[in-house]
């Protein structure tokens, strides 16, 4: 139990650093995890070099989905958009510092899916099942 509910997760869930919306924004995308109704939206601002200058998430859901969104948004701030394409399951798990079963894995990956959906458009994006299996 301690494994799953590490302090960082409870902390980020209870005191998110990057919760909010950006208006105006350059990118905004949102999606649900139909498995549990979790919802995440991510807004981005990028500069002329396609570097992410500011990012925020909003939405609601379980501690895993919200903490991972907060951590992910923190990580991508300052990154190049093209580098976001490289981010995968392993990066999210590393941010959380835990291993997850198949259901909670999807909670964790929702924000990654939203991010990729926002940056590349829907067609390039894998389903949560596929992200989880990647």
């Amino acid at each position, binding site marked *: *139990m301690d494994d*799953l*509910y590490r302090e960082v997760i*409870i902390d980020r869930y*209870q005191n998110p650093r990057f919760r909010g919306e950006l208006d105006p924004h350059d990118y905004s995308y949102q999606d649900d995890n139909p*498995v*549990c*109704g*979790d*919802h995440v939206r991510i807004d981005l601002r990028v500069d002329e070099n396609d570097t992410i200058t500011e990012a925020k998430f909003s939405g*609601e*859901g*379980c*501690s*895993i989905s*919200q903490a991972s969104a907060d951590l992910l948004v923190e990580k991508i701030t300052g990154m190049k958009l093209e580098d976001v394409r490289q981010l995968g399951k392993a990066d999210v798990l590393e941010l959380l510092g835990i291993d997850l079963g198949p259901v*909670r894995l999807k*909670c964790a990956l929702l924000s990654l899916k939203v991010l990729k959906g926002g940056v590349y458009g829907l067609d390039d994006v894998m389903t949560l099942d596929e992200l989880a299996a990647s």
Partner: protein
Amino acid sequence: MTISPQAGPLDVDKIRADFPILHMEASPGVKLAYLDSGASSQKPLAVIEAMNTYYRSQNANIHRAVYTLGEVATEAYEAARAKVAKFINASKPREIIFTRNATESVNLVAQTWGRANLKEGDLVLLTEMEHHANLVPWQMLAAEKGIRLEFIPVTEEGILDLAALPALLEQKPKLVSFTAMSNVLGTITPAAEIVRLAHEASALAMIDGAQSVPHLPTDVQALDVDFLAFSSHKMLGPTGLGVLYGKLDLLNAMPPFMGGGDMIKRVELRSFTTNEVPQKFEAGTPAIAEVVGLGAAVDYLMAVGMDAVAAYDHELTAYALERLEEVQGLKVFGPGIEHKSSNASFTFEGAHPHDVAEILNRHGVATRAGHHCAMPLHNKFGIPSTTRASFYLYNTKEEIDQLIEALYKVKEIFG
């Protein structure tokens, strides 16, 4: 669909001995408390063995078989139909149609009776506490045919607001379709009364019995209901099987659902004539082993007695509500025990329902978190999801105690 007080008590230890899965450990040293029967029930040995025996010694395709195995399989299949008919007191086995699940049963009515009888502007009356299975099929029909949907409101307390019904019935709905037991609130709706009022307003009445049929005695003739949909897997039977009960004259008048083998009488290259009910609605090879399994499940429930099942579920639910009240920060949705049975859905301050269920799981308690396929109802209460514990004839008060203890652990983590 009321709980008869004179029901004989049920011997839960004896019942538990019939369910192998209940004796597993959730994790080493941790007892499993399976409190998710509202999603799917566990299966007694009698059901597992009936299917096992079927595959080992009776398996064959039915209906057109002259050989012995095929006759045995056909008999087993049709005998189960008769058992299911008896279980809900249908007047004829032919009124029982086997489908994939309760969801398909509702879709069948929407796509056959609905398509044939509803036209633009016609009203179908539902309730705000419906499962998506009794909501989305009508929304699809509304998009296709331009029918209207209205909803019997749910009160703050979590019961149907029957005061609103007369005005809704004055709009002359063609069909009133509603759940007899909410899978989220546990609310037992006054099914017989709603059917009667629907009929007085010249509407047909359909019951979503996915939750009520497993938990309460059901008598379709006493209810005088026109259609009843339910699922095998929630009432001790196998997955992959649902039931639609329909009054014979309605079924006879309805167009077929799917096209294919068995639902036809004659086929030419460009035309066909339909077979009689129930085959008219059972296209292709049916779920033979599953029907045999459901027959065994119905035998099991009848042996225990549905009055006893209902009384016991009610007792467990009352105990659960009592104990949940002790837990600070926890809020149970739905009415008091006098209108309710079989489940308790709740939220817990500061902890997301998903996290609650996860921590409960770590203490061996299997519950479900989410919208329970009733998003509009959750919206109504202003919450996206709940954690639900649901109870059935094999659960015990000790398991509810285990739930309560585990809830205190949630508090420790998220408190």
